[in-house]
């Protein structure tokens, strides 16, 4: 019961872990390359959450010093994740571009079909 | 030139020769001249080094530090001097012989052949003058690799198969056993330098040293102690001058030389005497002496018979080293030279028979001696020297080995040596006897007179080495002096 209680208390982490594992599972289990990329994207998104959650303080604002506010969120992880998102976008678009080329070259984007043709090695 | 410069010159000359030979690919006469001039130069320089060494001093040649305590360095000491003399003198004869043999057989890839030969001899000189185990190991591997193209000279399936066995056994043992041994030596002694009296004394327990001895004896695959001997008979597919190189000039001699060097300068004979494990390997070597002789008797192929004879004779040297007495070491060192001259004569003769009559089986030789008297005469001389009968050089090494066995009170070894000599008679002497006294089969070329002696260069070479066997009996003193000057403590 304690575990459930802990989980409920830290539901955000639970969501992060769920996304992480689900994304990784899709990457491994799916033969369709687009789906693989979807999984990869979900997997990466979970990391964005991992960074953002702890740095956001309830009621906190952007760290612009102002006498009206005394609670600030940590800006650094936000900046980092902004970078990570850019990297993620680049990765996914490159991956999709590769899939287009693979589709042109092989006529399929199913990994199994390509490998079964004896052309994977 | 200073002695140091001479040593460097001796090391460099074979490699310079190897670099020059390909320039004359299209002019065989010039190419062979380069080989001969290189060989002659090398011999002169080695003799000059020997002359400057006559007072027994050791000569340190400069080297480079490779890393922490390990140097690429050279030093001339009596044992290495002896080996260098043998290798460089026999290279000349072997080159003369090669010219006759290769041209008579119209062999392909002669340039590669002479280049690899020069590199192999250069590696042998490097082994002889190595100041430490690292340098020795470096040239040891270079020798293996440079002889591989020679062993596979024919390039047919059988040659390639034998070449693979050759490479795998020699490289395999050296990397899997010898290298760890060298490494352990460094870990224990903190140095790899060869020192009189050894560097391992008092560094480890008897069991560790026994393991080390095991690694050295079997890791030095070129010494062909059973069961790592099988590359040697397999390598018989090579042309005869290559067999001569393997058996007399460089390869196996480098093996037993390394064994002697390790026993004398790494273990030290005092330590070997204390070690109880020494006897085990002594008996392994003695067993090799006997077994290889017995196998030799069953071989009908002439070169294979000689190969097993080599396996047997090499273990004489290992026995000499493991007897761990001064007389044993002297006997072992002298056996390097004596066996080299004897065995090279035998191989030259086998090659001459092949070139002239295309015979490879012992049973085909009946009556051949009467049409090839010089060849079979030389064979007889070589055989007698190997057996150890006077008036030939082989006697002396056997003599000192027997004395060494007595000194160490190993009566069993004494018996083995005597039995083996009898076996030598049994498998070597029938060959010239068949040649001289056998009846040539009806219609065979030797009966109808279709066979002549081998080409002149071959005859010159085998006569010179046969003469060498004889001279080594009467003028063995310089050799003995060199062997006796090996510092043991």
């Amino acid at each position, binding site marked *: 019961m304690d575990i459930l209680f802990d989980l409920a208390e830290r539901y955000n982490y639970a969501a992060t872990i769920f996304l992480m594992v689900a994304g990784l599972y899709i990457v491994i289990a799916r033969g369709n390359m687009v789906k693989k990329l979807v999984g990869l994207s979900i997997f990466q998104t979970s990391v964005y959450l991992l960074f953002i959650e702890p740095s956001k303080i309830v009621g906190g604002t952007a760290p612009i010093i102002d006498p009206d506010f005394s609670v600030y969120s940590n800006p650094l992880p936000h900046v980092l994740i902004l970078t990570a998102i850019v990297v993620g976008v680049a990765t996914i678009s490159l991956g999709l571009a590769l899939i287009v080329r693979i589709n042109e070259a092989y006529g399929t984007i199913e990994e199994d079909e390509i490998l079964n043709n004896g052309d994977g090695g | 030139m200073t002695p140091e410069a001479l040593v460097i010159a001796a090391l460099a000359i074979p490699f310079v020769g190897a670099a020059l030979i390909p320039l004359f690919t299209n002019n065989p006469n010039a190419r062979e001249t380069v080989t001969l001039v290189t060989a002659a130069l090398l011999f002169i320089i080695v003799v000059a080094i020997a002359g400057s060494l006559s007072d027994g001093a050791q000569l340190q040649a400069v080297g480079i530090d490779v*890393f922490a305590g390990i140097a690429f360095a050279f030093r001339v000491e009596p044992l290495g001097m002896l080996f260098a003399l043998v290798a460089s003198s026999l290279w000349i004869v072997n080159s003369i012989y090669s010219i006759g043999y290769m041209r008579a057989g119209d062999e392909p890839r002669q340039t590669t052949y002479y280049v690899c030969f020069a590199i192999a001899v250069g590696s042998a000189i490097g082994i002889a003058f190595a100041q430490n185990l690292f340098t020795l*190991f470096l040239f040891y591997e270079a020798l293996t690799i440079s002889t591989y193209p020679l062993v*596979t000279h024919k390039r047919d399936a059988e040659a390639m198969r034998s070449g693979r066995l050759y490479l795998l056994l020699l490289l395999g043992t050296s990397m899997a056993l010898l290298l760890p041994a060298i490494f352990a030596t460094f870990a224990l002694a903190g140095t790899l330098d060869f020192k009189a009296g050894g560097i391992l004394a008092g560094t480890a327990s008897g069991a560790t040293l026994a393991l080390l001895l095991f690694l050295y004896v079997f890791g030095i695959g070129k010494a062909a102690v059973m069961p790592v001997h099988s590359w040697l008979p397999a390598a018989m597919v090579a042309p005869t001058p290559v067999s001569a190189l393997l058996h007399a000039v460089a390869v196996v001699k480098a093996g037993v030389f390394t064994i002697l060097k390790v026993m004398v300068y790494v273990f030290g004979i005092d330590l070997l005497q204390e070690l109880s494990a020494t006897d085990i390997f002594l008996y392994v070597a003695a067993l090799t002496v006997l077994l290889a002789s017995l196998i030799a008797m069953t071989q009908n192929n002439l070169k294979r018979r000689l190969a097993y004879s080599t396996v047997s004779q090499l273990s004489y040297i290992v026995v000499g080293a493991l007897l761990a007495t001064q007389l044993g070491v002297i006997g072992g060192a002298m056996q390097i030279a004596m066996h080299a001259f004897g065995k090279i004569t035998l191989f030259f003769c086998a090659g001459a028979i092949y070139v002239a009559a295309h015979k490879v089986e012992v049973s085909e030789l009946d009556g051949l001696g009467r049409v090839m008297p010089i060849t079979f005469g030389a064979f007889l001389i070589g055989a007698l020297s190997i057996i150890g009968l006077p008036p030939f050089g082989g006697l002396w090494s056997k003599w000192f080995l027997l004395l060494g066995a007595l000194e160490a009170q190993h009566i069993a070894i004494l018996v083995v040596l005597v039995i083996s000599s009898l076996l030598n008679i049994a498998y070597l002497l029938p060959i010239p006897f068949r040649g001289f006294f056998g009846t040539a089969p009806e219609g065979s070329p030797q009966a109808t007179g279709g066979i002549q002696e081998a080409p002149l260069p071959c005859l010159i070479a085998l006569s010179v080495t046969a003469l060498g066997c004889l001279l080594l009996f009467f003028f063995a003193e310089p050799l003995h002096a060199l062997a006796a000057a090996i510092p043991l403590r």
Partner: protein
Amino acid sequence: MSSVLPHLPALQVVVPLFGAVIAAFLRRGAIAFVVALAVTWLMPVIAATMLWQVIETGPISYAMGGWEPPWGIEYRVDLLSAFVLLLVSAVAAAIMPFARQSVKLEIDESREAWFYCMYLLCLTGLLGITITGDAFNAFVFLEVSSLSSYVMIANGLDRRALLAAFQYLVMGTVGATFYVIGVGFLYLLTGSLNFVDIADRLANVGPEQFSAMVAALAFVSAGVGIKLALFPLHAWLPNAYAFAPSFATAFLAASATKVAVYLIIRLYYSVFGGAIDYAALPISEVIIVLSVAAMFIASAIAVFENNLKRMLAYSSVAQIGYVTLGIGLANQAGLTGGIAHLFNHAVMKGALFVALGCVFFRVGSCMLDEVTGLGRRMPITMAAFAIAGLGLIGTPGTVGFISKWYLAQGALDSGSWLLVFAIVASSVISVVYIGRVVEVVWFREPTSKAVIEASDPPLSMLLPLIALTAAVVYFGIETSASAGLASRAAEILTGALATGVPPPGAPQ
């Protein structure tokens, strides 16, 4: 000059970055090549100058944009990073002349400039990972180098190159993401991203957060493990190397995995080393077991490979096993062997892959049965292949021997004779796969028309090959520059390791 010197750390990364942009705008392959060549040849000069500075005056710290560490991004050059910078840039500079002809043959003319752009970006990323002192910045550079290398690989002639690039992309991204997760944990634990600062703060982390620290270690290990192709995370490597354009293969094989190894050494020794007593965790054992498995299994696979590029790729996996073995041994001699092997392996594999590039340039194939008898047609190329192959085997007188010697010494220092034998026994397997090629190439008669008509490639391809092959022998005899520096770096690194109680404020 004096105004440039302080900014060398920034220039090391910024110059190739701008070079990439210029190359992209030029659109003409030949001009882009000149840019790439100029940039690449400048890199080792900068790296060598910094190495000299580090040796003379100690580590260099450069505050990027004037923001002081630990708040801003710090570029930090110590002995290890200077060594790896010089290694990557020097090998790249050596290979570069080879690129012109090879790229011209294998890459469509309209894409040549883009290819050089990608190459320069990849170089930027690799140098950036090595020079940065910031955990997240390292991730960004990791992705810069990875994304550009996916593109380079996808440009291979064979359509399987596309598949290989995609597979690498998926695995590489998973790996990089794992690394970020680890960095996230570290940030949560310490509130810092600066390696030195993290190390300082980790030493003061309480025991209740120890498991979080171990989790961070596990995530970065797995993530970087994929990047460096640690067995069994190597699945992407053989195909990627086999089907990439020859130049990309030579460059990546010589540099990419090396930089990943650098990152893991940095993390293990400089970041976690002061806080976690490795003796208390089975990390060493795991790494050693995986390394030995790589040395044997990957080598054994290489023996049965018909595609020579794939054969060398598997051999790379095995050779990385030697490097990680040194890391796992975690003692002075072992780590020296590992770091020295980074350099030695880069030189050898560079030479071998350039040789194969030359073969492909002339014969149009890298399959073993299609290069029969090539030795006499391309004597210089194949002789270089044989010599570099000897280095791979570890024959004395070549670089391979030096690293194996130190590794064996490290194994002995940790009391394991078994490992000493594993190191030498695995070398024997490499005798087989190298010997097989040498035999086919040198000791058989040519059969195919392509081989009979082949000859040594043009000088621009031969010179890099000769230079690298000469380095294989030179650094096997004169080791003060390779193993000497590696030994000093290893001394600093192992000195920072915690033994027993975490020291307060562990040094960098």
